């Protein structure tokens, strides 16, 4: 979604930029909601940060990732606000691109974490 927002503003389409950044923030918030649910479920099963090596590793890795997603959601909303106010144009996309690079880097980190924690 973030990259579609960037592509939209490269084409000068501010409305689609705002739409895609809104969708990005919404999906990020849904991810965080899922994490909160998962954390609560595990805590209910007695798995906490201090209960075991798995608990420490799991909550540290996914917790820090969640923190980065939260920062990304806030950044997406700030970028959305600036976009809505006309801060970006086809010739000035650096702010959107910087957010997109951050967001997709967090994405790459999740690809690795998902594989290590949930698959292997």
């Amino acid at each position, binding site marked *: 979604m973030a990259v579609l927002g960037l*592509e939209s503003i490269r084409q000068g389409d501010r409305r689609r930029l705002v739409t895609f950044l809104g969708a990005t923030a919404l999906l990020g918030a849904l991810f965080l909601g899922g994490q909160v649910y998962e954390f609560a479920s595990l805590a209910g099963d007695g798995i906490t940060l201090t209960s075991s090596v798995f608990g420490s590793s799991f909550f540290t890795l996914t917790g820090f990732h969640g923190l980065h997603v939260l920062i990304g959601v806030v950044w997406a909303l700030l970028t959305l606000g600036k976009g809505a106010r006309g801060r970006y144009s086809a010739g000035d996309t650096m702010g959107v691109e910087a957010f997109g690079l951050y967001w997709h880097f967090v994405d790459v980190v999740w690809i690795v974490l998902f594989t290590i924690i949930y698959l292997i």
Partner: protein
Amino acid sequence: MTTHSAETARPAHAMRRYIVVFATLAAITLIEIGMSQAPLVASLATGLFLAFSLAKATLVVMFFMHLREDSRIYTAIFLLPVVLVLAFSTLMLMSAGGH
């Protein structure tokens, strides 16, 4: 950071390409989830999961982070840590296997 030449020339193409990359990422993830439920040999499954993970990360970096349009020096900066991690992980696994 990027030149954007290919994308600004054909914007509809760029949008379609991002959607194809997303669909590919989703398909690989579904295959991974399916594999995680299948009775595979652990070492084979681990190797395949790591290969799929590397493929997905490469797609995101190349297309969504536009590395393929950037200078080769950025590619080298991205690749060096990956090579180092793989080398050190292999050495650690070899070391652990010896004990």
